[in-house]
């Protein structure tokens, strides 16, 4: 084969490797960029997510603000994703990637549970996530806290977008993690009670939401125990409420808006159809 043929084959192979992504517009997009078009940018969600293990269980939580640049895109978005009945994932990073990755994980874990007739383990979810993310070399911007309770006990893992994973007794992720981790470092104790752990997660989240611009609005918490999983939220902390209502009301009278242009289209009915049934 001539070298140009090899080159063509290789670049085609790179473009349609199969799997989840379609690279067929890649060349076209590069051509459009060459003609002066600007490529769209990804929206990244600044976040505070926190998880803490305690005696026999795990508490995980997240704030609910999604941002696009410096604008709040969603005030009540759900960042605590259910993978199985007793495994949850909290996500920071690119919103679309997180939705898709957690959707894939929950599907695969459910199939696994049906095939084996046993509850899925946290390590399985983690391995699935890290292998998927490592395959895409960090281009899938999903930073996950995966945690839950399985027959081997409570587990908490962090999985970053490039596939690095770590196990923790407590941790925080996202842009608000710096504020949140200070609370965790100060107040975490081994073998806390459920109430202590829940309050710790809530306080850590509140610190993140207070100290970080890209986190706020409200928080969601999930408490996972061997026999029972409780979801709490949305909880709105005091500092996330509007301190004062608006002074004026902004109601517009009907018809008060200026009509800038008026155009009348005239149609002749050539043929009509009976759509009543």
């Amino acid at each position, binding site marked *: 084969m001539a070298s140009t043929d090899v080159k063509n084959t290789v670049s085609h192979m790179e473009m349609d490797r199969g799997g989840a992504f379609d690279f067929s517009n890649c060349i076209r997009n590069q051509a459009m960029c060459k003609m002066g078009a600007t490529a769209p*940018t990804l929206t990244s969600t600044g976040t505070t997510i926190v998880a803490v293990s305690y005696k026999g269980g795990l508490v995980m939580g997240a704030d609910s603000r999604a941002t696009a640049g*410096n604008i709040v895109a969603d005030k009540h978005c759900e960042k605590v994703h259910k993978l199985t009945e007793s495994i949850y994932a909290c996500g920071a990073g690119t919103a679309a990637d997180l939705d898709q990755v957690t959707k894939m994980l929950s599907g695969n874990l459910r199939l696994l549970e049906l095939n084996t007739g046993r509850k899925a383990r946290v390590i399985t979810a983690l391995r699935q996530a890290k292998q998927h993310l490592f395959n895409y070399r960090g281009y899938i911007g999903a930073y996950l806290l995966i945690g839950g309770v399985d027959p081997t006990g409570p587990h908490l893992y962090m999985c970053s977008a490039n596939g690095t994973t770590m196990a923790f007794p407590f941790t925080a992720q996202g842009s608000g993690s710096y504020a949140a981790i200070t609370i965790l470092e100060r107040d975490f104790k081994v073998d806390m009670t459920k109430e202590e752990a829940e309050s710790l997660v809530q306080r850590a989240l509140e610190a993140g939401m207070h100290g970080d*611009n890209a986190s*706020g609005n409200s928080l969601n918490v999930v408490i996972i125990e061997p026999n029972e999983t409780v979801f709490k939220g949305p909880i709105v902390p005091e500092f*996330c409420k509007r301190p*004062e209502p608006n002074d004026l009301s902004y109601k517009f009278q009907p018809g008060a808006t*200026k009509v800038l242009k008026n155009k009348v289209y005239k149609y002749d009915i050539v043929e009509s159809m009976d759509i009543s049934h």
Partner: protein
Amino acid sequence: MACFNGITASADATNQMHSFKQAMREVSAKPDWLSARHIERQRWNPYSMEGGSTCAISGDNFAIVASDTRMTANDINILTRDAEKIQVLNDSIILTTSGFYGDVLQLTKVLQSRLHKYRFDYRADMSVDLCAELLSRNLYYRRFFPYYTGAILAGIDEHGKGAVFSYDPIGCIERLGYSASGAAEPMIIPFLDCQIGHVTLDEGYEKPALTMERAISLMKDSFRGAAEREISTGDKIHLVIAEAGKPIVQKFLPLRED
């Protein structure tokens, strides 16, 4: 939402299609991923942006200036919740500045010292019109290494009327009825255009007069609205009210802190 921008419809569609096909051929022959990677170099950048928003409204015999008090690093990290972005320069001049806080402080210092010298030389306070021109010249003096600020100068002029002057970073000056600058400027300006400028209101509908009470309420509401949706605006409203023949009043009002 996310889409390609920048390709404008040309009258000669065939010509455009031709050049697009040419671009396709060039790109297929040498795609980005087969060429050497660009080395991204970190350029020295003396500027930063500390977020926050400021706004000013003028009326027949008053001028109102407001800003939030949050200071932010990299759009995310809160540096302080008590940053003051409004300076009362004398009994009739108020300066409010957003942008790079280092330049905000320096610009304030420069203006204060010039006003001090003026008072020493002429035994009188400078008028707001004069100060507006002075600020414009000070900004343009740094044409090629600008103060990275969006300044608004407000006050009561020599005829006892409210005045608002708006600037770009290199000293382009405009006298307006109302103005905003900073991170939430794109949210506040359309609101004030609607409520004070009445740009969307049809003829024959009642236009509410801009009393001082109404202006203050609109000012508060615009910051309450901005704090809901703009992440670097929040914590407190710093409200400064100048009314002709009365001393300047300053107030702080709470905003959401998340």
